[in-house]
């Protein structure tokens, strides 16, 4: 049920297994209507989010990337999100200097019980990406498709 008018954009979400993935599930169970542009990748922890995941996603054609994990202090592995916070803040500058608007990237903390907050995060972020429109892409560079991506991985 795309809440937003027009074409879907490509938004990638890296979610921590323990909090935000649960939060997204809670939102689903609660039947909160959300835009459907987001594709979720579940990770064990935001500490697992290598900032290069985000860069790779953008270079492969994502229009927005969202990272979400447990609130600081609530990490299942004690400190994963503290490390993530530093790395992701630094990443923002790299995106900026590369010419990828840092507004296309967002990180936040959502717990498993915060279904309502999750809905809000997804809706706000999706609206923001729609406002920005599709991200810049390379002109003389074949797009990464599932097929080329699979081939590259072999």
């Amino acid at each position, binding site marked *: 049920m795309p809440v937003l008018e027009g074409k879907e954009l490509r938004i990638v979400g890296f979610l921590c297994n323990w909090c935000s993935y649960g939060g997204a599930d809670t939102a689903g169970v609660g039947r909160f209507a959300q835009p459907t542009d987001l594709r979720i990748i579940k990770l064990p922890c935001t500490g697992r989010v290598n*900032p*290069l995941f985000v*860069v*790779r996603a953008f*270079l*492969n054609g994502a229009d927005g990337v969202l990272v979400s994990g447990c*609130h*600081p*202090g609530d990490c299942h592995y004690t*400190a994963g999100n*503290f*490390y993530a*916070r*530093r*790395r992701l*803040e*630094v*990443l*923002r*500058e*790299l995106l*900026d*200097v*590369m*010419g*990828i*608007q840092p507004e296309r990237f*967002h*990180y*936040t*903390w959502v717990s498993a019980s915060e279904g309502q907050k999750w809905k809000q*995060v997804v809706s706000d972020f999706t609206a923001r990406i729609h406002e920005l429109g599709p991200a*810049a892409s*390379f*002109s*003389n*560079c*074949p797009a*990464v498709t599932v097929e080329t991506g699979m081939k*590259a*991985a072999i």
Partner: protein
Amino acid sequence: MVQHTQELRKLIAQALPELDVVLAWTSGSNQLASAPLFITAEDDLDKLDFGPMHVQNLAAYLPSLKGRKVGIVTRGCDSRTIIELLQEKLINRDEITIFGIPCTGAVNIRKVREAADGQRLRSVEAGKDIVSVTTDEGVRTIPMQDVLMEKCYNCPSQTPLIHDHMVTERNGCHMTGEAPESTLDKLDAMEPDARFAFWEESMDRCIRCYACRNACPLCVCKDSCVAQSRDPHWVDLSDNPREKLMFQAIHALHTAGRCTECGECERACPMGIPILAMKQALNRRIKHLFDYEAGMDMENTPPLFMFRQQEEHIKERDAR
């Protein structure tokens, strides 16, 4: 300069019996081709030379020589590399002997070539404030101020921050003028789309030689570089700006909080791609967020190796 060289030779000769090798510079076939010199015997000292045309950051060799007794000739900026390597325990302090030299700046050889307008260079000589270039068309003098490496304009310390021996301090410094506009300044003035196009165009020229990585003293993964790993497959081998830009993102992020802006990556690039700008941008951010500069304090922990529960300068984007 001659006097300094003599003094340096004497210092090295005294310490040499205790050392396996001393890293220094020598002049190559022409004065633009400065090369590293590996001194193992006193005879080698005749070849030793140093001055504005000797530009390599010799500290890049240190990690691969860990475990041996190594001497190294060191300028201010190189000493930051050494401190950073010590912080990361990639080298041991008691294995290295630092011969500090007073630096008067290093020349950007690319700029000298440009100033010679593509003419064949017969000889190049660096004086105190000028570089004189002799081509088939005659002699041209270029103010030193115009051909320095970018890092030298804002050099915080021309004297090494650590050293065991020191060549007599020079007095005065000839770098007084303004730094020319940097690539980062230019990028800052652009809109995001223009910035993206800038990198697309730059990366189009990249030949994927990885000289930028190989020259970087902090790229120490050697044969395990993620850029060449098949599993996981971070970058594929296609010749397109996307994969090449991905590699630059890897280099920038892997040196974030560690890069001392020595400029070796950019100097080594045969295509003249201004890749230092990305690293400078990250450093600027790191300075702002963590009040941290790489390679200044041996006791400090690089900021991405640690965290604080309450980060002073990180404002959470949402209320919790």
